[in-house]
């Protein structure tokens, strides 16, 4: 019974039995809490994956529109402005800031886009012609980048959650399949050991009482024999042989103790 399965190395005492019982209780509570956490995270995770799928489709459309507006620009400007723009980029106007959101104890990062005021690297771009198209193109792209940032934060949350869910599930399984069975085995072992000790104790007590009974029986027999001898001696002496009868009626002579 106690040899089945692994158990912890403890001495089979009542104290460690109590310890193991409280440990088992703790493990069960922890297991149910972690299980619930994992469920909450999984729910969130499914939500995020669905939104990622949607956002990716949306991104495809938005980028297409943005690319089209860029084509408009190159048509209006009548040349390639790429080089000029790459050279004039100095300070980022469009930046992101990260916040985090707490989902059952897990911090999910979220990006939030903001524009830094007063920075404009492209003040002179499109000064000759096509300025309006360039302006429109910038707006389109700014919207596209916002979508991208949104998608990026979803994706980051996805990666973080994926990792966390794996860790939590690992813990849940470890408690369910390793810690709880091991603690239960230990409790079984301690119980069987304690029962064994009880049986030993009982047997020992039984032996002791048997021995005592035997001793008293022997002592009784001896006393009886001594009395008989005494009575025979008295009879031989004759005379006052009737005397003990009257004494017995009064009950003054002590009975031999009965030992249970």
């Amino acid at each position: 019974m106690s040899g089945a399965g692994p158990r912890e190395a403890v001495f089979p005492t009542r104290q460690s039995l109590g310890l193991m019982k409280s440990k088992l209780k703790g493990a069960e509570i922890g297991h149910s809490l972690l299980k619930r956490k994992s469920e909450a995270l999984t729910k969130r995770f499914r939500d995020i994956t669905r939104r990622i799928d949607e956002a990716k489709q949306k991104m495809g459309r938005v980028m297409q529109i943005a690319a089209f507006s860029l084509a408009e620009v190159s048509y209006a400007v009548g040349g390639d402005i790429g080089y000029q723009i790459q050279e004039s980029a100095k300070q980022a106007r469009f930046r992101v800031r990260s916040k985090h959101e707490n989902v059952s104890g897990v911090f999910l990062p979220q990006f939030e886009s903001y524009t830094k005021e007063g920075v404009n690297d492209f003040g002179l771009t499109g000064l000759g012609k096509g300025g309006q198209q360039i302006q429109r193109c910038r707006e389109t792209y700014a919207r596209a980048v916002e979508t991208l940032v949104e998608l990026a934060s979803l994706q980051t949350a996805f990666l973080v959650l994926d990792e966390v869910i794996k860790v939590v599930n690992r813990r849940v399984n470890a408690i369910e399949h390793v810690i709880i069975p091991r603690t239960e085995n230990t409790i079984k072992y301690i119980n069987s050991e304690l029962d064994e000790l009880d049986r030993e104790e009982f047997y020992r007590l039984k032996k002791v009482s048997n021995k005592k009974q035997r001793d008293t029986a022997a002592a009784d027999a001896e006393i009886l024999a001594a009395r008989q001898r005494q009575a025979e001696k008295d009879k031989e002496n004759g005379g006052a042989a009737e005397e003990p009868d009257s004494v017995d009626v009064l009950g003054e002579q002590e009975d031999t103790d009965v030992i249970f």
Partner: protein
Amino acid sequence: MAASAATYKDRQFLAVIGDEDSVTGLLLAGIGHVTDPPDSQRNFLVVDSKTETSEIERAFENFTQERKDIAVVLINQHIAERIRHSVDTFADPFPAVLEIPSKDHPYDPEKDSVLKRVRRLFGE
């Protein structure tokens, strides 16, 4: 995960690896940034047919591992395809690597490393 909280606080830029049109458009939106001299590093890389794969690889590594101020790396899907191994093995949450479509190459969700994982999780 809490340990990463400090590292993503100061990430505020986006980086781009893309063809000329994508980079131009995104720069117009105002994401371009050049760090202060002497090591004036750009946060964008223009890739054309003559660009070596090793150069893309190096830029990707630079944006994802060396620079600590980049929050999102945007990369054209057809370029990500060229360094697919690096993109797939990069699994850290920061910076977020996002594959974007380009003008000449329509978006294919089947190739996206993140979407592949999404699909796999749903068992499709």
